[in-house]
């Protein structure tokens, strides 16, 4: 793969991650932050794919699969926590 394309792709994903971090910091309610964390986890899977394309090492895909699994479990736990809690301010 061409070096320039991979670098541009990393730049685009970093802009997306920065927007996610903005929403995590600014988000007026807890569900906003939870959704932004979930999206950030999916973007990190994309980072792992690009690293696999760039270096040709296959173990980055193991990291991607593990990250997707852990992110899903964490999201479900946070969602159940939100459901049993009253919303204050």
């Amino acid at each position, binding site marked *: 793969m061409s070096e320039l394309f991979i670098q541009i792709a990393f730049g685009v994903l970093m802009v997306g991650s920065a927007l996610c971090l903005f929403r995590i910091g600014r988000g007026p309610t807890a*569900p906003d932050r939870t959704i932004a964390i979930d999206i950030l986890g999916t973007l990190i899977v994309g980072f792992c794919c690009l690293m696999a394309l760039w270096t040709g090492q296959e173990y980055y895909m193991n990291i991607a699969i593990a990250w997707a699994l852990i992110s899903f479990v964490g999201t479900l736990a946070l969602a159940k926590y939100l459901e049993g809690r009253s919303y204050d301010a």
Partner: protein
Amino acid sequence: MLETLVYWLVGIGLAFDLFGTIGLVRLPDVYNRAQAATKCVTLGTCMILLGVAVAAFGGAVGPGVNWPMAVKALICAAFILLTSPVGAHAICRGAYISGVPLWEGSVEDKFADRAKTIRQDQAKEGTVQGEEAETS
């Protein structure tokens, strides 16, 4: 030819990711943000994974066909496609039940009655559990 296909797949995926995160910042309330961000970013990341799988099958990564990378990319794509909507749905349900208000421009709210009964059930269970905890 193959490299061009990979470039197109990864590029379309990156564009979807960027639009999804822009929607996450720009839209007015939790439910709109979840809808925009989850759909776009799920499909965008699946496109990137599909690009990696095509590159590995076609032999663009490393010498020959890189079978482990291709199969793992497809497994990861299927897994994200299955789990990401489930997670977003759970968060939105939790947000509504915990009382996050809709945007004032929203026109329809079909979950209101159901959410009211769910909240009443939760309140009942809470009192029963609280009494048991006090007596025991």
